[in-house]
């Protein structure tokens, strides 16, 4: 095992791996944000009074959580590429090959997956808010939007925090799957290094350690965030 391969500069691969790590963080952050957005919308749908919206929410979470992420990535990668080509062809008469935008595909796929898990976390968090809180807000005459902003969202966010920490962990780890369609994140950077140096173990071990560091750091971040969010809560 030649550890100088993992050094900085021209001979080492540390620069490439660091760029890969930054890409992993960026994709995971964008996908997580998209997941929260999708999760809030579908949690609202599942909690609504209309059976059609409830059904829509159920179908989304069941399908996305029941089908492998890899399969979803293949669908969007190949499907998205074909869709882009046909749009380019019919609108601009473009005939050539269009490289599918792997970054957008990655964020979309991982975000949709994170959204399904977030839906359940957010729904449970909203249900955990005591009814009295909403009633009190109504009693002082708050409009629905104000109620949402001042009462519902701040409290639901606190209840959702531990669950969202788990979703973040899944999201971070799932980004490695995007490497199969060619986005240069940690896994892809390691695979490229492994291919050109014939030292696969060294590079995949480096990827392994990088993920371990990223998850450990973010784990600690979420624990701190929970302590901060619960600072005003009476302990039982």
């Amino acid at each position: 095992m030649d550890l100088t391969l993992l050094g900085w500069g021209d001979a080492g691969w540390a620069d490439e791996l660091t760029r890969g790590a930054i890409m992993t963080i960026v994709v995971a952050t964008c996908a997580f944000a998209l997941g929260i957005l999708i999760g809030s919308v579908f949690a609202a749908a599942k909690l609504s009074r209309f059976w059609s919206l409830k059904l829509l929410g159920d179908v989304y979470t069941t399908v996305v959580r029941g089908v492998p992420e890899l399969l979803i990535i293949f669908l969007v990668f190949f499907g998205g590429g074909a869709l882009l080509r046909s749009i380019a062809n019919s609108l601009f008469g473009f005939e050539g090959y269009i490289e599918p935008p792997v970054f957008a595909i990655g964020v979309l796929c991982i975000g949709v997956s994170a959204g399904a898990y977030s839906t359940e976390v957010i729904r449970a968090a909203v249900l955990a808010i005591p009814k009295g809180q909403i009633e009190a807000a109504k009693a002082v005459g708050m409009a629905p939007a104000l109620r949402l902003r001042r009462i519902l969202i701040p409290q639901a966010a606190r209840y959702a925090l531990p669950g969202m920490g788990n979703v973040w962990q899944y999201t971070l780890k799932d980004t490695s799957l995007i490497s199969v369609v060619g986005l240069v994140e940690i896994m892809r950077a390691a695979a490229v290094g492994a291919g050109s140096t014939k030292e696969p173990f060294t590079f995949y071990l480096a990827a392994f350690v990088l993920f371990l560091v990223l998850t450990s750091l973010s784990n600690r971040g979420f624990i701190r965030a929970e302590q901060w969010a619960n600072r005003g809560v009476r302990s039982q």
Partner: protein
Amino acid sequence: MDFDLMREAFPKIIAAVPTTLALAAISLCLGFALAVPLALMRVSKNRSISAIAYGYVYIIRSTPLLVQMFLIYYGSGQFRAFFEAAGLWTFFRDAWFCAILALTLSTAAYSTEIIRGAIQAVPLGQIEAARAVGMSGFLQFRRIVFPIAMRLALPAYGNEIILMVKSTSLASTITILEVTGVAKQIISNTYRPVEIFVIAGAIYLSINFIVSRSVTLIELWLNPHRRAERGVRTVSAAAGH
């Protein structure tokens, strides 16, 4: 939607279902066999034993399964001379062996935490009663703690089974042609991702539906005292609407 293509692709994808099921079943069984001793280590009063088990669980749960699988399958090539000398190369060059090893190590870590939680949730009174009638430590575990813990672990373990069925799809990245692998092959030959996705997705959803229904049934069968309660709950829930 191209129904002719779907009719043609369906038998090919269905033919890969046994591979997916075998990967999931073998690694779940082996993983469970590893997880029980690991969970016992986790609840051990000896802090270093508990720390070793937790270290394993922490490392596996903090890294993507894809990295673990590549580390085992491609990474072992770097030590080919060593594995050949040890007579292990026939295993490590086999994608099947590597996929099952990676899946087993992964599910063992997740199941360890599920079983640990269940063991710690066994009511203390049960253990005290077992002690009071003079059961030895092992008999206590075999007759009282383990059966109750399994019953408590079942819902969470059901989720783990579904996650494992989904995880087998990663074996396609190390050349194994299970459902996702075959689906990807057909997609890249025909460029009809939607049709193939519908078939493969429906297969996964049906497997997972059967798993989750079976787990619910086993749960009811193992908890006869809760059957009545469940009936009451569904009635009151219906009345609430």
